[in-house]
Structure formats: structure tokens, C-alpha cells
């Protein structure tokens, strides 16, 4: 089966062009509005958790606050530090902003995936997906875009020619690449159970609750992925890139006005898109919860409703984390990423691969046997490793000892 969007496979018609432009425009407008609402929602919910009122002047419940902030930033005077690098300083906002948008392109935003349907809809006689594009390597595309955002942070900090942004940027890029390793390894577990890199196909394989990758891969890859994306997004408790108390505003200290607004927008848009990626990979995306069929609504729209409901849960979780957890210290952050998340993700992935290979039916007794063997092999190899370390240390001491005794005085 071709894992690409079937739109236009029957040759080019003006309707397919129209649908394509329509999809681009709709996703564009929806993503911008969703981001503005997200910024407002975060401020409102966090202020609720802090027992204060939050924005309440612009529009009903302050809902127009982000728009008002945007207009203010738009008319604000900005100036570039004289020591900054002019080209990179101007390039950095684009490098943050465009990848943030592009991740939307591969997330399935709706469509009927129930009972093994492939989630396509028919508009004007053209068969297409409720998703901008469905490349065969959709997941790699997400990883690639989140990597480009690292360039945005790094270049913004470096090009400013100032100390706080530079500190924020080197911290941030080291943090982001560290957690990206864990992110990739937990993702491999999803690929193992779904057998495809295409996002639509991954959703399609999760057609009942036990097939959701959250359950099918065990809960561990999901937990690692959630932690790693939080770090990747520089959200609290991993917001060392900004760390207001020590670095003023981190990598974007020297940006003002609309350029700062673009960084801000990209940051919040990344929160929404990465939540969408989590929902797609682990919670079945537009698949209904527990097979519930909402009456009187066509399947494709129903998919969008389920997707948005699942998305809102994760957006709330991110805001909740921000209001609850204190920031990590930098050494704790790096230790956690390299010494906990990466080994656990790798070990879990190998266990899943062994289970997949040696107990394909997934019966409990088989799975238990394979798991037991894996654990025994794992413990044995760690024991061997420590034994080897002991031997090499003893040999080194023995080699060093006679030299000291026999050295001429």
C-alpha cells in the first residue's frame, strides 16, 4: 500500500489544486488561532493555580489578550545590539517559526480510522486525507523539524553578541540534543509495534484501546517520550534555556518587538504540535476512545473531535507541570537524560524487539518466558561488565606496582 496522500494520484484537476490550497489555508489559520488561545489559556490556568485573576480586560475573560499583546509588539521600537551578527540575528526568528509550523503538515487531524478504514475523506470527488501531507517518513520529518529548532535557539543566542543569550543558547542546545537521543529511542518502540514511519499508518494500526501504542509498547516509551518532549520544548521544569532568575530571558534576551513575538509564538505552537505528535503516536490520534460513536456526526469530523479532546488533555498537562514543578539543576538535567532516560529507553526497546521476535502471538506465558530470559541476560552482562572492570583495575595496579619499587633512587 502506498503510504502517501491519495490526493491527485489520478492526475491533476483544478479541484485537487483547490483542495490543496484549502488545506494549507485552513491548517494555517487554525494553527495561528489555536496558538493564541493556548497562550491565553496558559496564562489563565496558571493564574488560577496561583490564586490570582490573570488576563481579564481584553475581551470576555481576557480572551483577546494574546491579540492585544501581538499588536503591542508589532508597534514597538526594536534595536539590534551593535555587536551582533546582522545576518544570523535576522535569520534566527525564521528558523524557529517555520519548523514550528511545518510539524502541523504531517499530523493526522481527523478522518475516519475506525474498523481498519484508512482515514481518507472524499471532497469534490477527490479522495484525500485530513492531513496536509502523508510522507512515508512522516516521523523522521517531525524529528528533523524539531532539530532545526535547535539551530534557531543556537543562532539566536550566538548572533546576539551578548552574554546571557549565549549562555542560554549553549545550555539550550546541549539540553535539546541530549533529550533528542532519548526521544528517538523511545520512538523506535512505536515503530516496532506499528511497523511504519507514516503518521497516518501509525494511527491506522491503533484501532482499539489495547492496540494504542500507549498500551502496546508498555507505558515506559510513552513516559520517556513525554519527558523528552517537555525538555525538547524547553518547558518547565526543563526551561533552563530561559531561566528568568539567572539568564534574564535566555537566548531571546536581545530580541524585542515582533521578532520576540515570533519566538514566543513558535514556542507555544511547538507545545501544541508536539502534543499532537504524542496523541498521534501513542493515543491513536483521531481514533475514538473505547469505540464510542458520536451520533449524527460524520466519521471524519468525529475523528477531529476525538483528536482535539486528546490534544487538550496534553496541553493541560504541560500547563499543570509548569505551575507545579520547580526547575531542575543543570547537572541533574544532564544526568537524568543520559544516565536514566537513554539506557532505559534502549533496554525497553530491546526487550520489546525480543518479545516481538520470540513471542509473536503475545500469549502471557510466552511473553513472561522471553522477558525472564531477557532480564537474566541483562543482569549477566552487567555482572560480566563489572567483573571485567575489576580485572582491568587489578591488572593496572599490578603493572604499576613493580615500576615504583624498582625505580632507581
Amino acid at each position, binding site marked *: 500500500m502506498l503510504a502517501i496522500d491519495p490526493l491527485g494520484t489520478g492526475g491533476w484537476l483544478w479541484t485537487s489544486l483547490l483542495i*490543496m490550497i484549502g488545506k*494549507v489555508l485552513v491548517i494555517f489559520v487554525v494553527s495561528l488561532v489555536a496558538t493564541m488561545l493556548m497562550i491565553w489559556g496558559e496564562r489563565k490556568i496558571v493564574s488560577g493555580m496561583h490564586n490570582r485573576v490573570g488576563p481579564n480586560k481584553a475581551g470576555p475573560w481576557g480572551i483577546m489578550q494574546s491579540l492585544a499583546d501581538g499588536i503591542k509588539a508589532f508597534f514597538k521600537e526594536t534595536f539590534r545590539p551593535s555587536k551582533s551578527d546582522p545576518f544570523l540575528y535576522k535569520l534566527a526568528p525564521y528558523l524557529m517559526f517555520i519548523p514550528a*509550523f511545518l510539524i502541523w503538515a504531517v499530523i493526522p487531524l481527523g478522518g475516519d480510522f475506525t474498523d481498519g478504514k484508512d482515514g481518507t475523506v472524499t471532497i469534490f470527488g477527490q479522495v484525500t486525507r485530513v492531513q496536509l501531507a502523508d510522507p512515508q517518513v512522516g516521523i*523522521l520529518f517531525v524529528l528533523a523539524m524539531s532539530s532545526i529548532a535547535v539551530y534557531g535557539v543556537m543562532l539566536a543566542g550566538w548572533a546576539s*553578541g551578548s552574554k546571557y543569550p549565549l549562555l542560554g543558547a549553549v545550555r539550550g542546545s546541549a539540553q535539546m540534543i541530549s533529550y533528542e537521543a532519548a526521544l528517538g529511542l523511545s520512538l523506535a518502540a512505536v515503530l516496532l509495534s506499528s511497523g511504519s514511519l507514516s503518521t497516518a499508518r501509525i494511527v491506522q494500526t491503533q484501532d482499539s484501546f489495547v492496540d494504542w501504542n500507549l498500551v502496546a509498547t508498555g507505558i515506559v516509551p510513552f513516559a520517556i517520550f513525554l519527558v523528552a518532549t517537555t525538555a525538547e520544548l524547553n518547558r518547565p521544569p526543563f526551561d533552563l534555556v530561559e531561566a528568568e532568575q539567572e539568564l534574564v530571558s535566555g537566548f531571546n534576551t536581545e530580541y524585542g518587538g515582533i521578532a520576540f513575538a*515570533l519566538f514566543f509564538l513558535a514556542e507555544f505552537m511547538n507545545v501544541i504540535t508536539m502534543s499532537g505528535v504524542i496523541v498521534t503516536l501513542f493515543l491513536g490520534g483521531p481514533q475514538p476512545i473505547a469505540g464510542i460513536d458520536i451520533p449524527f456526526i460524520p466519521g471524519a469530523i468525529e475523528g477531529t473531535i476525538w483528536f482535539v479532546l486528546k490534544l487538550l488533555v496534553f496541553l493541560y498537562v504541560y500547563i499543570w507541570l509548569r505551575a507545579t514543578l520547580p526547575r531542575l539543576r543543570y547537572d541533574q538535567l544532564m544526568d537524568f537524560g543520559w544516565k536514566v532516560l537513554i*539506557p532505559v529507553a534502549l533496554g525497553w526497546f530491546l526487550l520489546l524487539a525480543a518479545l516481538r521476535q520470540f513471542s509473536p502471538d503475545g500469549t502471557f506465558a510466552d511473553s513472561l518466558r522471553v522477558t525472564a530470559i531477557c532480564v537474566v541476560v541483562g543482569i549477566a552482562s552487567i555482572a560480566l561488565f563489572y567483573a571485567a572492570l575489576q580485572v582491568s583495575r587489578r591488572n593496572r595496579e599490578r603493572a604499576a606496582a613493580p615500576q615504583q619499587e624498582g625505580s632507581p633512587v
Partner: protein
Amino acid sequence: MRRGIGAAEFGRDFTSPGIFGARMSDFLRDYLNVVWFAVAALAIGGLLLGLAAAIRPSFPSAEKNIAYESGVDPVGMGWSQSQIRYYVFALLFVIFDVEAVFLFPWAANIERYGTFGLVVMLIFIVLLLDGLVYAWKRGLLRWV
């Protein structure tokens, strides 16, 4: 044109005419949507930045353009040296990024390669894990 199984899988049958009249594969045409989206994002970013630059007030002065350093005059260069440890982490990251590149295609097709594939990948992963264990034992992961 050579047409193997791989070519058919990737949709490289050049049958449908592309949007500029040239012929384009289905595989590539799927990315065309992404390109359009990128152009739209570039346009909105450029429009916002350009329009704001045109209408906002601008009265630059030497004092305004000094780099921010908590309100005092900046000391020394803005581009100060940073710790070598960041570099070590960047190198280690490359190991795991390369690992992911080889891991993903295998993970998506685990049935096709069977037990042989599992053992081979196990050897590969253990070899790369060696690098992490070595760095760990040498204390390179310790952030002082």
C-alpha cells in the same frame, strides 16, 4: 526506466503530470504540500517582520545598541568561551543520532529480518552503547 520492487514501493512511477507541466512522482508530489506550507509560513513571518519594520518608530542611539548586561556596561566580549563539556555531549549525541538512523528502518520491518536481524542489531547497539559506558566510566557525563 528501471522498475524494481523498491521503485514501485516509493511510488516512482512517473505517470501523473506535475503541476508545472513536468512529470513528477507521487512520492515527491506529497512533499509539494509541505513546500507550499513552508512558503506560507515564510511569507507570514516575512510579512510581519517587514511590515513592523516599516511602521514602528526607530530612534537608534549608541546607548540603546549596547548589549544588555543587567543595566551596567558590558564587560569584555559578548562571545565568551564556554565549557568544553557541551562539546562532549554534542559528540555523544551524534552516536545516538546515527544509531537512530539505523534503528528506525529495522524497527519498522522487524518481521522481515527475523532472528538474524535481531542478533545483528543487538551487536550494533551494544557496540554503540560501549561508547556511552566508556564516557560514563571516564566521568565525562559528570557535570561539575
